[in-house]
């Protein structure tokens, strides 16, 4: 019999029951929450006179609507404020293990705060009413983004109704070149397999290049698994995972820690495990990436040229390229490095961790943001990241170069607060979605790594960061 994949192991240890058609009830260890996708779930619970099954599984924080400056003015938009207040009230009523309300010193993006507090652990099942829950797979946890009805279901029953997905292994061997980051790896993968390439799969990222990534880098890769259409992205637990977790507030302690580490060592795919699909890539072939279109799969190496729809044979794809070029205001065949930008956003659950800010700061140090760049924002992922960055003097590097240094939150990743693009504005962004209007109606988003975003801010247009260092 073939060995087990990491996905098999995580799945099997959480199945409560299985129906004859393969539908399972999966036990959920960690329930992450933010203010946008939870109010209707709590309301449903209340209407049905139900309680939370296990409120100590809950880690919650408001992040989408919260402003990133002028905290003294509170939340000025009354609709946003109502949503944040609703989360406060719901947590008060139903309880939680961890809750960082607005302005708490540890507040931040849910996908940043759960790992840094040790609340995401290997072997867990993790859910959140948020597609980028995939992030937590970096810890060898099975992490699913869910809808609000499912949030209510998990609240009420501590389980999720699921059918097992197919398994895919994406193996990246070799060593990443200087200036090539986890973000470039993830975008290159999406460029290769497409935004629907992972649909119906749980993707395990493996190979020496993945193993060589820090936990921050692994989180970036898993975060973007959802943009490849996957149900979840996972990476085996190893020494890097264990070292990251040691001493974090909610990580196990004492004898529990030793037993946990022993168990975590088993959380990898067996050598003879069979995957439904295997994709191999060479680390050396990955270059810094820039998206040019309105889907993350519309991505190229920075040295590339904007595609010409005339070269696309498939009519649906051709129409997609034409529409994207029109929306993005780009000419076919123009070099990526000729694209001028108006704004820069360094932040989001993809790239707002300390390592990301360090990488951007290295590029920005001693330079100035170009005159054509109207706004360059740096938004740390959490209060903890912010304080760490300030202790290292990164905030000074940014502000001296002309970047704005903000309070933590989702910010311009989805522009639910005041940070957004105006129609037609073009942004170099370290976030995860370049959809039409994502960063503000009519806004144009190019996804890049933190180092590439900083380099674009300095140059005023995209540049290959490898030529800047």
């Amino acid at each position: 019999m073939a060995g087990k994949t990491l996905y098999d192991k995580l799945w099997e240890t959480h199945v409560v029951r299985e129906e004859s058609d393969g539908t399972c009830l999966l036990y959920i260890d960690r329930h992450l929450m933010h203010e946008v996708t939870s109010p209707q779930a709590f309301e449903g619970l209340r209407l049905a006179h139900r309680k939370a099954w296990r409120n100590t599984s809950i880690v919650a924080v408001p992040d989408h609507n919260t402003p990133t400056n002028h905290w003294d003015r509170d939340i000025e938009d009354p609709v946003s404020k109502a949503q944040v207040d609703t989360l406060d009230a719901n947590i008060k009523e139903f309880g939680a293990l961890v809750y960082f309300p607005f302005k708490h010193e540890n507040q931040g993006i849910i996908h940043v705060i759960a790992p840094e507090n040790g609340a995401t652990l290997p072997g867990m099942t993790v859910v959140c009413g948020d597609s980028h829950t995939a992030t937590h797979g970096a810890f060898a946890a099975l992490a699913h983004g869910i809808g609000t009805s499912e949030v209510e279901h998990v609240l009420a029953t501590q389980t999720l109704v699921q059918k097992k997905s197919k398994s895919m292994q994406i193996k990246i061997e070799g060593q990443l070149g200087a200036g090539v980051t986890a973000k470039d790896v993830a975008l290159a993968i999406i460029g290769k397999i497409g935004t629907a390439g992972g649909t119906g799969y749980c993707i395990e990222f493996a190979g020496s290049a993945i193993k060589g990534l820090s936990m921050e880098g692994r989180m970036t890769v898993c975060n973007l698994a959802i943009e490849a259409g996957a149900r979840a992205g996972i990476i085996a637990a190893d020494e890097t995972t264990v070292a990251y977790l040691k001493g974090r507030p909610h990580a196990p302690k004492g004898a529990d820690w030793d037993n946990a580490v022993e168990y975590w060592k088993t959380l990898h795919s067996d050598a003879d495990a069979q995957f439904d699909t295997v994709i191999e890539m060479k680390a050396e072939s990955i270059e810094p990436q820039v998206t040019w279109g309105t889907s993350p799969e519309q991505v190229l190496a920075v040295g590339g040229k904007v595609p010409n729809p005339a070269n696309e044979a498939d009519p649906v794809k051709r129409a997609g390229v034409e529409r994207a070029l029109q929306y993005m205001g780009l000419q076919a065949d123009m070099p990526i490095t000729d694209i001028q930008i108006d704004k820069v956003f360094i932040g989001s659950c993809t790239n707002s961790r300390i390592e990301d800010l360090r990488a951007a700061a290295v590029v920005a140090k001693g330079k100035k943001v170009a005159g054509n760049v109207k706004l360059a924002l740096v938004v740390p992922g959490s209060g903890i990241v912010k304080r760490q960055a300030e202790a290292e003097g990164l905030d000074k590097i940014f502000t001296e170069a002309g970047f704005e240094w903000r309070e933590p939150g989702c910010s311009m990743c989805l522009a639910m607060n005041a940070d957004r693009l105006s129609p037609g504005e073009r942004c170099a962004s370290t976030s995860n979605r370049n959809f039409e209007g994502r960063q503000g109606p009519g806004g144009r988003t190019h996804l890049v790594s933190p180092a590439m975003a900083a380099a674009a801010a300095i140059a005023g247009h995209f540049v290959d960061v490898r030529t800047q260092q």
Partner: protein
Amino acid sequence: MKAFTQLNGLVCPLDRANVDTDAIIPKQFLKSIKRSGFGPYLFDEWRYTNYGEPGMDCTDRPLNKDFVLNQPRYQGAQVLLARDNFGCGSSREHAPWAIEDYGFRVIIAPSFADIFFSNCYKNAVLPIVASAEVVDRLFKECEATEGYKLDVNLAEQTVTTPTGFSFKFDITEHRKHCMLNGLDDIGLTLAHADEIKAFEEKHKATQPWLFA
């Protein structure tokens, strides 16, 4: 939840791939703490030429005449025909809420994004995966024939065109049962509360740190 058994519904063709949930219902409407009332804002940025805000009265907003949903021949459509990877992006259940509130009960596409796909079932919207060839054929027929309706039968798992061409679609037994009877999952799951408790105890014994 409303039950879904059978439908003979007008079809609206949305000829784009990768339609994301930001396009289905833009973020500003996510500030609502309700489940209802999203229909008027479905595809807001494509549908209207001005910027939509939550709570806005949509009856006199300027329409984008070119957008398919605004064409007179598709008014009252209940079946949405779409391309690959429909519903990708954010997990927001506001997307199926808006689709259902607008009046769509069925979406047919060659592929759907996972989270959106399962969100549909929770809201009495039936997502049907059909082969790219079949979807192509439906697009052609629909665009060529005014008043084009499809017959969708969940019990039989079939879709039939006006000319009698018919194809089968897949659905898990569990989802079919819930949809046909309008059952919500929570009640069904809580019938197994004892099993969940027993599992929880066992799980706690093997990995106590998960419960610390």
